[in-house]
Protein backbone atom coordinates (compact mmCIF):
# COMPACT_ATOMS: atom_id res chain seq x y z
CA UNK A 1 0.00 0.00 0.00
CA UNK A 2 1.14 3.55 -0.73
CA UNK A 3 1.70 4.76 2.81
CA UNK A 4 2.34 8.44 3.37
CA UNK A 5 1.91 10.96 6.11
CA UNK A 6 3.65 14.04 4.74
CA UNK A 7 4.03 15.97 1.50
CA UNK A 8 7.66 14.76 1.33
CA UNK A 9 6.41 11.15 1.56
CA UNK A 10 4.06 11.78 -1.36
CA UNK A 11 6.78 13.36 -3.49
CA UNK A 12 9.19 10.52 -2.67
CA UNK A 13 6.59 7.91 -3.66
CA UNK A 14 5.87 9.73 -6.92
CA UNK A 15 9.57 10.03 -7.78
CA UNK A 16 10.35 6.45 -6.81
CA UNK A 17 7.46 4.98 -8.81
CA UNK A 18 7.82 7.48 -11.65
CA UNK A 19 4.16 8.35 -11.29
CA UNK A 20 2.17 11.52 -10.84
CA UNK A 21 0.82 12.32 -7.37
CA UNK A 22 -2.72 11.66 -8.57
CA UNK A 23 -1.73 8.08 -9.47
CA UNK A 24 -0.30 7.60 -5.96
CA UNK A 25 -3.60 8.84 -4.49
CA UNK A 26 -5.74 6.67 -6.77
CA UNK A 27 -3.75 3.58 -5.73
CA UNK A 28 -4.07 4.62 -2.07
CA UNK A 29 -7.85 4.93 -2.32
CA UNK A 30 -8.24 1.68 -4.30
CA UNK A 31 -6.42 -0.23 -1.57
CA UNK A 32 -8.02 1.61 1.31
CA UNK A 33 -11.61 1.18 0.16
CA UNK A 34 -10.92 -2.30 -1.28
CA UNK A 35 -12.52 -1.51 -4.58
CA UNK A 36 -11.51 -1.10 -8.22
CA UNK A 37 -9.69 1.72 -9.92
CA UNK A 38 -12.70 2.27 -12.17
CA UNK A 39 -15.05 2.73 -9.24
CA UNK A 40 -12.72 5.17 -7.48
CA UNK A 41 -12.24 7.25 -10.64
CA UNK A 42 -15.96 7.14 -11.37
CA UNK A 43 -16.78 8.42 -7.88
CA UNK A 44 -14.38 11.35 -8.35
CA UNK A 45 -15.81 11.98 -11.81
CA UNK A 46 -19.24 12.29 -10.19
CA UNK A 47 -17.86 14.87 -7.76
CA UNK A 48 -16.60 16.83 -10.76
CA UNK A 49 -20.07 16.67 -12.31
CA UNK A 50 -21.58 18.16 -9.14
CA UNK A 51 -18.94 20.93 -9.23
CA UNK A 52 -19.66 21.74 -12.89
CA UNK A 53 -23.41 21.85 -12.24
CA UNK A 54 -22.88 24.16 -9.27
CA UNK A 55 -20.90 26.55 -11.48
CA UNK A 56 -23.64 26.46 -14.13
CA UNK A 57 -26.42 26.99 -11.58
CA UNK A 58 -24.55 29.71 -9.76
CA UNK A 59 -23.17 31.92 -12.45
CA UNK A 60 -26.45 33.25 -13.79
CA UNK A 61 -28.53 33.30 -10.61
CA UNK A 62 -29.35 36.49 -8.77
CA UNK A 63 -31.28 34.70 -6.04
CA UNK A 64 -30.30 35.65 -2.49
CA UNK A 65 -29.32 33.32 0.35
CA UNK A 66 -31.81 32.55 3.14
CA UNK A 67 -30.40 35.41 5.23
CA UNK A 68 -30.28 37.78 2.25
CA UNK A 69 -26.63 38.70 2.90
CA UNK A 70 -25.18 37.20 -0.29
CA UNK A 71 -26.22 36.10 -3.78
CA UNK A 72 -25.96 37.68 -7.21
CA UNK A 73 -22.28 38.68 -7.16
CA UNK A 74 -21.30 35.86 -9.52
CA UNK A 75 -23.87 37.02 -12.07
CA UNK A 76 -22.72 40.60 -11.67
CA UNK A 77 -19.07 39.66 -12.12
CA UNK A 78 -19.98 37.55 -15.15
CA UNK A 79 -21.60 40.59 -16.78
CA UNK A 80 -18.60 42.76 -15.94
CA UNK A 81 -15.96 40.39 -17.31
CA UNK A 82 -17.68 40.16 -20.69
CA UNK A 83 -16.39 43.61 -21.56
CA UNK A 84 -14.05 44.70 -18.79
CA UNK A 85 -11.19 43.47 -16.79
CA UNK A 86 -7.58 43.69 -15.82
CA UNK A 87 -6.78 40.18 -14.71
CA UNK A 88 -7.04 38.05 -17.83
CA UNK A 89 -9.44 35.25 -18.67
CA UNK A 90 -8.16 32.38 -16.49
CA UNK A 91 -8.12 34.47 -13.34
CA UNK A 92 -11.48 36.04 -14.09
CA UNK A 93 -13.03 32.64 -14.73
CA UNK A 94 -11.57 31.28 -11.49
CA UNK A 95 -13.17 34.22 -9.64
CA UNK A 96 -16.49 33.76 -11.44
CA UNK A 97 -16.66 30.00 -10.85
CA UNK A 98 -15.56 30.22 -7.21
CA UNK A 99 -18.22 32.87 -6.50
CA UNK A 100 -20.83 30.79 -8.35
CA UNK A 101 -20.24 27.63 -6.32
CA UNK A 102 -20.03 29.47 -3.00
CA UNK A 103 -23.28 31.30 -3.72
CA UNK A 104 -24.97 28.02 -4.63
CA UNK A 105 -23.82 26.70 -1.25
CA UNK A 106 -25.18 29.75 0.58
CA UNK A 107 -28.60 29.39 -1.04
CA UNK A 108 -28.89 25.72 -0.11
CA UNK A 109 -27.84 24.23 -3.42
CA UNK A 110 -25.81 21.11 -4.05
CA UNK A 111 -22.02 21.29 -3.75
CA UNK A 112 -19.02 19.11 -2.95
CA UNK A 113 -17.39 19.94 0.38
CA UNK A 114 -13.79 20.39 -0.76
CA UNK A 115 -12.50 20.19 1.84
CA UNK A 116 -15.43 21.98 3.55
CA UNK A 117 -18.69 23.63 2.51
CA UNK A 118 -17.34 27.05 3.48
CA UNK A 119 -14.41 26.65 1.08
CA UNK A 120 -16.28 24.71 -1.60
CA UNK A 121 -15.78 27.28 -4.39
CA UNK A 122 -11.97 27.34 -4.55
CA UNK A 123 -11.19 23.93 -6.00
CA UNK A 124 -13.90 23.91 -8.72
CA UNK A 125 -13.18 27.57 -9.49
CA UNK A 126 -9.50 26.99 -10.08
CA UNK A 127 -9.61 23.56 -11.68
CA UNK A 128 -12.38 24.34 -14.16
CA UNK A 129 -10.84 27.68 -15.18
CA UNK A 130 -7.40 26.12 -15.66
CA UNK A 131 -8.91 23.07 -17.36
CA UNK A 132 -10.49 25.35 -19.97
CA UNK A 133 -7.32 27.42 -20.41
CA UNK A 134 -5.09 24.39 -20.92
CA UNK A 135 -7.79 22.54 -22.88
CA UNK A 136 -7.03 19.37 -20.91
CA UNK A 137 -9.27 16.29 -21.14
CA UNK A 138 -11.77 15.76 -18.32
CA UNK A 139 -9.68 12.90 -16.86
CA UNK A 140 -6.91 15.32 -16.13
CA UNK A 141 -9.20 17.51 -14.02
CA UNK A 142 -10.37 14.39 -12.19
CA UNK A 143 -6.70 13.51 -11.62
CA UNK A 144 -6.17 17.01 -10.23
CA UNK A 145 -8.92 16.37 -7.68
CA UNK A 146 -7.06 13.26 -6.46
CA UNK A 147 -3.86 15.27 -6.04
CA UNK A 148 -5.82 17.94 -4.17
CA UNK A 149 -7.30 15.25 -1.92
CA UNK A 150 -3.78 14.03 -1.09
CA UNK A 151 -2.84 17.51 0.10
CA UNK A 152 -6.02 17.66 2.19
CA UNK A 153 -5.26 14.26 3.74
CA UNK A 154 -1.80 15.42 4.82
CA UNK A 155 -3.10 18.71 6.22
CA UNK A 156 -5.87 16.86 8.06
CA UNK A 157 -3.24 14.54 9.54
CA UNK A 158 -0.86 17.25 10.79
CA UNK A 159 -3.05 20.36 11.13
CA UNK A 160 -6.80 20.74 10.58
CA UNK A 161 -9.44 21.33 7.92
CA UNK A 162 -12.07 22.76 10.28
CA UNK A 163 -12.60 26.46 10.94
CA UNK A 164 -13.63 25.62 14.50
CA UNK A 165 -10.18 24.24 15.26
CA UNK A 166 -7.85 26.17 12.93
CA UNK A 167 -9.72 29.25 11.72
CA UNK A 168 -10.19 30.00 8.02
CA UNK A 169 -6.58 29.10 7.21
CA UNK A 170 -7.75 25.52 7.82
CA UNK A 171 -10.61 25.85 5.32
CA UNK A 172 -9.80 28.39 2.59
CA UNK A 173 -6.06 28.10 3.26
CA UNK A 174 -6.16 24.34 2.80
CA UNK A 175 -8.47 24.57 -0.23
CA UNK A 176 -6.10 27.06 -1.84
CA UNK A 177 -3.08 24.82 -1.24
CA UNK A 178 -5.02 21.83 -2.59
CA UNK A 179 -6.01 23.75 -5.73
CA UNK A 180 -2.47 25.05 -6.29
CA UNK A 181 -1.13 21.50 -6.12
CA UNK A 182 -3.71 20.28 -8.63
CA UNK A 183 -2.93 23.08 -11.09
CA UNK A 184 0.80 22.32 -11.07
CA UNK A 185 0.08 18.70 -11.91
CA UNK A 186 -2.45 19.66 -14.61
CA UNK A 187 0.20 21.91 -16.16
CA UNK A 188 2.70 19.00 -16.13
CA UNK A 189 4.83 20.37 -13.31
CA UNK A 190 7.03 17.99 -11.31
CA UNK A 191 6.02 16.46 -7.97
CA UNK A 192 8.55 18.75 -6.30
CA UNK A 193 6.89 21.78 -7.89
CA UNK A 194 3.56 20.51 -6.55
CA UNK A 195 5.13 20.56 -3.09
CA UNK A 196 6.38 24.11 -3.58
CA UNK A 197 2.92 25.26 -4.68
CA UNK A 198 1.40 23.77 -1.52
CA UNK A 199 3.92 25.60 0.67
CA UNK A 200 3.54 28.91 -1.18
CA UNK A 201 -0.27 28.89 -1.11
CA UNK A 202 -0.73 27.81 2.49
CA UNK A 203 2.02 30.13 3.75
CA UNK A 204 0.14 33.12 2.40
CA UNK A 205 -3.10 32.31 4.24
CA UNK A 206 -1.55 31.37 7.60
CA UNK A 207 -3.30 33.08 10.47
CA UNK A 208 -6.53 33.72 8.60
CA UNK A 209 -9.33 33.76 11.17
CA UNK A 210 -12.90 32.46 10.92
CA UNK A 211 -15.22 35.29 12.03
CA UNK A 212 -18.39 34.97 9.95
CA UNK A 213 -21.19 37.49 10.37
CA UNK A 214 -24.16 36.01 12.27
CA UNK A 215 -22.38 32.65 12.30
CA UNK A 216 -23.41 31.95 8.71
CA UNK A 217 -21.28 30.63 5.83
CA UNK A 218 -21.73 33.84 3.83
CA UNK A 219 -19.74 36.90 4.94
CA UNK A 220 -16.79 36.91 4.36
CA UNK A 221 -16.82 33.30 3.09
CA UNK A 222 -18.32 33.71 -0.40
CA UNK A 223 -15.95 36.43 -1.58
CA UNK A 224 -13.02 34.85 0.22
CA UNK A 225 -13.45 31.81 -2.02
CA UNK A 226 -12.72 34.08 -5.00
CA UNK A 227 -9.54 35.36 -3.33
CA UNK A 228 -8.49 31.84 -2.33
CA UNK A 229 -8.90 30.73 -5.95
CA UNK A 230 -6.74 33.56 -7.31
CA UNK A 231 -3.98 32.99 -4.81
CA UNK A 232 -3.91 29.29 -5.74
CA UNK A 233 -3.18 30.42 -9.29
CA UNK A 234 -0.40 32.70 -8.06
CA UNK A 235 1.17 29.88 -6.03
CA UNK A 236 0.95 27.46 -8.97
CA UNK A 237 2.54 29.94 -11.41
CA UNK A 238 5.36 30.72 -8.98
CA UNK A 239 6.05 27.01 -8.51
CA UNK A 240 5.88 26.30 -12.25
CA UNK A 241 8.40 29.09 -12.78
CA UNK A 242 10.75 27.13 -10.54
CA UNK A 243 10.46 29.44 -7.54
CA UNK A 244 10.84 27.69 -4.22
CA UNK A 245 9.35 28.34 -0.81
CA UNK A 246 12.11 28.88 1.74
CA UNK A 247 10.01 26.99 4.30
CA UNK A 248 9.23 23.47 3.01
CA UNK A 249 5.57 22.36 2.69
CA UNK A 250 5.44 20.04 5.70
CA UNK A 251 6.90 22.72 7.96
CA UNK A 252 4.29 25.20 6.71
CA UNK A 253 1.58 22.66 7.60
CA UNK A 254 3.06 22.26 11.10
CA UNK A 255 3.08 26.04 11.41
CA UNK A 256 -0.60 26.09 10.40
CA UNK A 257 -1.33 23.68 13.22
CA UNK A 258 0.60 25.76 15.74
CA UNK A 259 -1.05 29.00 14.62
CA UNK A 260 -4.48 27.36 14.75
CA UNK A 261 -3.85 26.20 18.31
CA UNK A 262 -2.74 29.68 19.35
CA UNK A 263 -5.75 31.35 17.73
CA UNK A 264 -8.31 32.52 20.32
CA UNK A 265 -11.58 30.64 20.29
CA UNK A 266 -13.45 33.89 19.60
CA UNK A 267 -11.90 33.84 16.10
CA UNK A 268 -12.56 30.18 15.36
CA UNK A 269 -16.10 30.02 13.97
CA UNK A 270 -17.79 31.26 17.14
CA UNK A 271 -18.56 34.72 15.70
CA UNK A 272 -17.61 36.37 18.97
CA UNK A 273 -15.03 38.75 17.52
CA UNK A 274 -13.68 40.23 14.29
CA UNK A 275 -16.01 40.89 11.35
CA UNK A 276 -18.94 39.33 13.20
CA UNK A 277 -18.67 41.93 15.94
CA UNK A 278 -18.20 45.01 13.73
CA UNK A 279 -21.04 47.56 14.04
CA UNK A 280 -22.44 46.45 10.67
CA UNK A 281 -22.01 42.77 11.52
CA UNK A 282 -23.93 43.28 14.76
CA UNK A 283 -26.73 45.17 13.03
CA UNK A 284 -27.13 42.30 10.53
CA UNK A 285 -27.06 39.74 13.32
CA UNK A 286 -29.66 41.64 15.34
CA UNK A 287 -31.92 41.90 12.31
CA UNK A 288 -31.64 38.16 11.60
CA UNK A 289 -32.06 36.86 15.12
CA UNK A 290 -33.99 39.68 16.76
CA UNK A 291 -31.26 40.33 19.31
CA UNK A 292 -27.49 40.43 19.72
CA UNK A 293 -25.60 37.77 21.62
Amino acid at each position, binding site marked *: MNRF*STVIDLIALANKQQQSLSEI*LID*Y*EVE*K*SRTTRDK*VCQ*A*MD*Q*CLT*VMIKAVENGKNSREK*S*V*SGMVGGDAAQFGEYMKVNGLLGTVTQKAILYALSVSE*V*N*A*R*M*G*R*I*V*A*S*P*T*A*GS*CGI*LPGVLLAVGEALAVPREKIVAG*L*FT*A*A*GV*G*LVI*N*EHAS*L*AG*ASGGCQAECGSASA*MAAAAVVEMADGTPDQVGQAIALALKNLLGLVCDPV*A*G*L*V*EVPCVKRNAFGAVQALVAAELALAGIKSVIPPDEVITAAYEIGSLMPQSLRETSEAGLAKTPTGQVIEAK*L*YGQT*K
Partner: protein
Amino acid sequence: MKGVFDIIGPVMIGPSSSHTAGATRLGKLARAILGEAPCQVIVKLHGSFAKTYRGHGTDKAIAAGLLGFSSDDERIPAALTIASAAGMKIEFVKDDFADVHPNTACLEMVGKSGRKATVMGSSIGGGSITVTKINGYQVELTGEYATLITIHEDRPGVVALVTQVLAQGDINVAFMRVSRLERGAEALMILESDEPISHQAYDKVANIPMVKSAMLVPPI
Protein backbone atom coordinates in the same frame (compact mmCIF):
# COMPACT_ATOMS: atom_id res chain seq x y z
CA MET B 1 -5.61 8.16 7.76
CA LYS B 2 -8.90 9.13 6.17
CA GLY B 3 -9.98 8.38 2.62
CA VAL B 4 -9.84 10.57 -0.47
CA PHE B 5 -13.60 11.14 -0.37
CA ASP B 6 -13.49 12.39 3.20
CA ILE B 7 -11.55 15.33 1.74
CA ILE B 8 -13.30 15.76 -1.63
CA GLY B 9 -16.80 15.20 -0.29
CA PRO B 10 -19.41 14.71 0.83
CA VAL B 11 -21.67 15.88 -1.96
CA MET B 12 -24.18 17.87 0.04
CA ILE B 13 -26.76 20.61 0.12
CA GLY B 14 -25.25 23.78 1.61
CA PRO B 15 -24.50 25.93 3.38
CA SER B 16 -22.88 24.10 6.30
CA SER B 17 -21.61 20.55 6.70
CA SER B 18 -22.42 20.62 10.43
CA HIS B 19 -25.59 22.75 10.47
CA THR B 20 -27.15 21.43 7.24
CA ALA B 21 -25.64 18.09 6.11
CA GLY B 22 -25.16 16.77 9.65
CA ALA B 23 -28.62 17.97 10.66
CA THR B 24 -30.18 16.05 7.76
CA ARG B 25 -28.34 12.90 8.79
CA LEU B 26 -29.49 13.37 12.39
CA GLY B 27 -33.12 13.60 11.25
CA LYS B 28 -32.73 10.57 9.01
CA LEU B 29 -31.09 8.50 11.75
CA ALA B 30 -33.82 9.52 14.22
CA ARG B 31 -36.46 8.35 11.74
CA ALA B 32 -34.62 5.04 11.29
CA ILE B 33 -34.49 4.57 15.07
CA LEU B 34 -38.24 5.25 15.32
CA GLY B 35 -38.61 2.58 12.62
CA GLU B 36 -41.45 4.25 10.75
CA ALA B 37 -42.52 7.60 9.31
CA PRO B 38 -43.00 10.11 12.12
CA CYS B 39 -46.21 12.13 12.07
CA GLN B 40 -45.57 14.42 15.02
CA VAL B 41 -42.17 15.71 16.07
CA ILE B 42 -40.96 18.26 18.58
CA VAL B 43 -37.41 19.32 17.76
CA LYS B 44 -35.54 20.97 20.61
CA LEU B 45 -32.50 22.92 19.41
CA HIS B 46 -29.51 23.73 21.60
CA GLY B 47 -26.56 26.13 21.34
CA SER B 48 -25.42 27.13 17.87
CA PHE B 49 -28.28 25.09 16.38
CA ALA B 50 -30.77 27.18 18.36
CA LYS B 51 -29.08 30.45 17.43
CA THR B 52 -28.41 30.01 13.72
CA TYR B 53 -30.90 27.41 12.58
CA ARG B 54 -32.88 29.65 10.25
CA GLY B 55 -29.84 31.04 8.44
CA HIS B 56 -28.27 27.62 8.02
CA GLY B 57 -31.53 25.90 7.11
CA THR B 58 -31.06 23.49 10.03
CA ASP B 59 -34.85 23.30 10.45
CA LYS B 60 -35.31 22.36 6.79
CA ALA B 61 -32.45 19.88 7.02
CA ILE B 62 -33.87 18.10 10.07
CA ALA B 63 -37.31 17.99 8.43
CA ALA B 64 -35.73 16.52 5.29
CA GLY B 65 -34.00 13.85 7.36
CA LEU B 66 -37.30 13.02 9.09
CA LEU B 67 -38.79 12.57 5.62
CA GLY B 68 -35.99 10.09 4.89
CA PHE B 69 -34.03 12.36 2.52
CA SER B 70 -30.25 12.16 2.26
CA SER B 71 -27.95 15.14 2.84
CA ASP B 72 -27.42 15.69 -0.93
CA ASP B 73 -31.15 15.73 -1.76
CA GLU B 74 -32.15 18.88 -3.63
CA ARG B 75 -35.58 18.80 -1.99
CA ILE B 76 -34.02 19.87 1.35
CA PRO B 77 -34.80 23.60 0.87
CA ALA B 78 -38.49 22.70 0.41
CA ALA B 79 -38.59 20.06 3.15
CA LEU B 80 -40.79 22.02 5.59
CA THR B 81 -43.48 22.40 2.93
CA ILE B 82 -43.13 18.77 1.82
CA ALA B 83 -43.40 17.58 5.43
CA SER B 84 -46.50 19.60 6.11
CA ALA B 85 -48.10 18.38 2.85
CA ALA B 86 -47.31 14.80 3.95
CA GLY B 87 -49.11 15.42 7.26
CA MET B 88 -45.90 15.47 9.30
CA LYS B 89 -46.22 18.06 12.06
CA ILE B 90 -42.83 19.41 13.14
CA GLU B 91 -42.39 22.02 15.83
CA PHE B 92 -39.01 23.67 16.46
CA VAL B 93 -38.26 25.06 19.91
CA LYS B 94 -35.11 26.56 21.37
CA ASP B 95 -33.80 24.76 24.43
CA ASP B 96 -30.71 24.57 26.61
CA PHE B 97 -29.32 21.14 27.49
CA ALA B 98 -26.37 22.67 29.40
CA ASP B 99 -23.22 20.62 29.02
CA VAL B 100 -23.57 19.14 25.52
CA HIS B 101 -22.01 19.80 22.11
CA PRO B 102 -23.03 23.26 20.74
CA ASN B 103 -24.75 21.65 17.72
CA THR B 104 -27.23 19.46 19.54
CA ALA B 105 -30.88 18.64 18.89
CA CYS B 106 -33.39 16.45 20.67
CA LEU B 107 -36.19 14.94 18.55
CA GLU B 108 -39.34 13.73 20.29
CA MET B 109 -41.16 11.66 17.69
CA VAL B 110 -44.52 9.96 17.43
CA GLY B 111 -44.85 7.57 14.50
CA LYS B 112 -47.79 6.71 12.26
CA SER B 113 -48.63 3.61 14.33
CA GLY B 114 -48.35 5.57 17.58
CA ARG B 115 -44.83 4.32 18.31
CA LYS B 116 -42.72 6.84 20.20
CA ALA B 117 -38.98 7.53 20.34
CA THR B 118 -36.84 10.36 21.67
CA VAL B 119 -33.44 10.79 20.06
CA MET B 120 -30.79 13.31 21.07
CA GLY B 121 -27.75 13.85 18.91
CA SER B 122 -24.99 16.25 17.95
CA SER B 123 -23.51 17.29 14.64
CA ILE B 124 -19.81 17.10 15.39
CA GLY B 125 -18.30 18.52 12.19
CA GLY B 126 -17.85 17.69 8.52
CA GLY B 127 -21.34 16.14 8.39
CA SER B 128 -20.49 13.52 11.03
CA ILE B 129 -23.00 12.97 13.82
CA THR B 130 -23.28 11.19 17.14
CA VAL B 131 -26.57 10.16 18.68
CA THR B 132 -26.03 10.54 22.42
CA LYS B 133 -29.37 9.50 23.88
CA ILE B 134 -32.19 7.20 22.81
CA ASN B 135 -35.31 7.18 25.03
CA GLY B 136 -33.23 8.44 27.95
CA TYR B 137 -30.45 5.86 27.55
CA GLN B 138 -26.90 7.15 27.10
CA VAL B 139 -25.63 5.86 23.76
CA GLU B 140 -23.00 6.64 21.17
CA LEU B 141 -24.15 6.00 17.65
CA THR B 142 -22.70 7.40 14.41
CA GLY B 143 -25.06 6.10 11.74
CA GLU B 144 -22.04 5.11 9.67
CA TYR B 145 -22.50 1.39 10.24
CA ALA B 146 -25.30 -1.13 10.04
CA THR B 147 -26.68 -1.00 13.57
CA LEU B 148 -28.76 -3.29 15.74
CA ILE B 149 -30.37 -1.80 18.84
CA THR B 150 -32.02 -3.95 21.49
CA ILE B 151 -33.97 -3.06 24.58
CA HIS B 152 -33.80 -6.08 26.84
CA GLU B 153 -33.99 -7.35 30.42
CA ASP B 154 -30.84 -6.44 32.37
CA ARG B 155 -29.90 -10.06 33.12
CA PRO B 156 -26.81 -12.26 32.61
CA GLY B 157 -26.59 -13.99 29.24
CA VAL B 158 -28.68 -11.70 27.05
CA VAL B 159 -25.64 -10.02 25.49
CA ALA B 160 -24.15 -13.43 24.70
CA LEU B 161 -27.37 -14.64 23.09
CA VAL B 162 -27.52 -11.62 20.81
CA THR B 163 -23.86 -11.73 19.76
CA GLN B 164 -24.18 -15.47 19.15
CA VAL B 165 -26.90 -14.82 16.58
CA LEU B 166 -24.63 -12.32 14.83
CA ALA B 167 -21.67 -14.73 14.95
CA GLN B 168 -23.81 -17.44 13.33
CA GLY B 169 -24.72 -15.00 10.58
CA ASP B 170 -21.01 -14.25 10.03
CA ILE B 171 -21.58 -10.62 11.07
CA ASN B 172 -18.58 -8.93 12.65
CA VAL B 173 -19.29 -6.50 15.49
CA ALA B 174 -17.25 -3.31 15.00
CA PHE B 175 -18.51 -1.39 18.06
CA MET B 176 -20.74 -2.40 20.95
CA ARG B 177 -22.21 -0.54 23.89
CA VAL B 178 -24.56 -1.56 26.69
CA SER B 179 -26.30 0.92 28.99
CA ARG B 180 -29.16 0.95 31.44
CA LEU B 181 -31.20 3.32 33.52
CA GLU B 182 -31.14 1.19 36.70
CA ARG B 183 -29.72 -2.17 37.74
CA GLY B 184 -31.77 -5.28 37.02
CA ALA B 185 -34.46 -3.48 35.05
CA GLU B 186 -34.24 -2.64 31.36
CA ALA B 187 -31.01 -2.26 29.36
CA LEU B 188 -30.20 -0.98 25.90
CA MET B 189 -27.51 -2.41 23.65
CA ILE B 190 -26.10 -1.00 20.44
CA LEU B 191 -24.10 -3.14 18.02
CA GLU B 192 -22.49 -1.53 14.98
CA SER B 193 -21.30 -3.85 12.23
CA ASP B 194 -19.08 -3.63 9.14
CA GLU B 195 -21.42 -5.92 7.20
CA PRO B 196 -25.13 -5.39 6.59
CA ILE B 197 -27.21 -7.09 9.31
CA SER B 198 -29.67 -9.49 7.67
CA HIS B 199 -33.38 -9.50 8.45
CA GLN B 200 -32.95 -13.16 9.32
CA ALA B 201 -30.47 -12.30 12.07
CA TYR B 202 -32.69 -9.44 13.18
CA ASP B 203 -35.73 -11.73 13.48
CA LYS B 204 -33.74 -14.21 15.58
CA VAL B 205 -32.63 -11.44 17.92
CA ALA B 206 -36.15 -9.99 18.17
CA ASN B 207 -37.44 -13.47 19.11
CA ILE B 208 -35.07 -13.92 22.06
CA PRO B 209 -37.55 -13.93 25.00
CA MET B 210 -35.55 -11.49 27.12
CA VAL B 211 -35.32 -9.00 24.26
CA LYS B 212 -38.29 -6.64 24.58
CA SER B 213 -37.73 -4.83 21.33
CA ALA B 214 -35.13 -4.63 18.61
CA MET B 215 -34.43 -2.06 15.90
CA LEU B 216 -32.43 -2.48 12.73
CA VAL B 217 -30.88 0.78 11.52
CA PRO B 218 -29.10 0.83 8.15
CA PRO B 219 -26.11 3.15 7.62
CA ILE B 220 -27.30 6.72 6.99
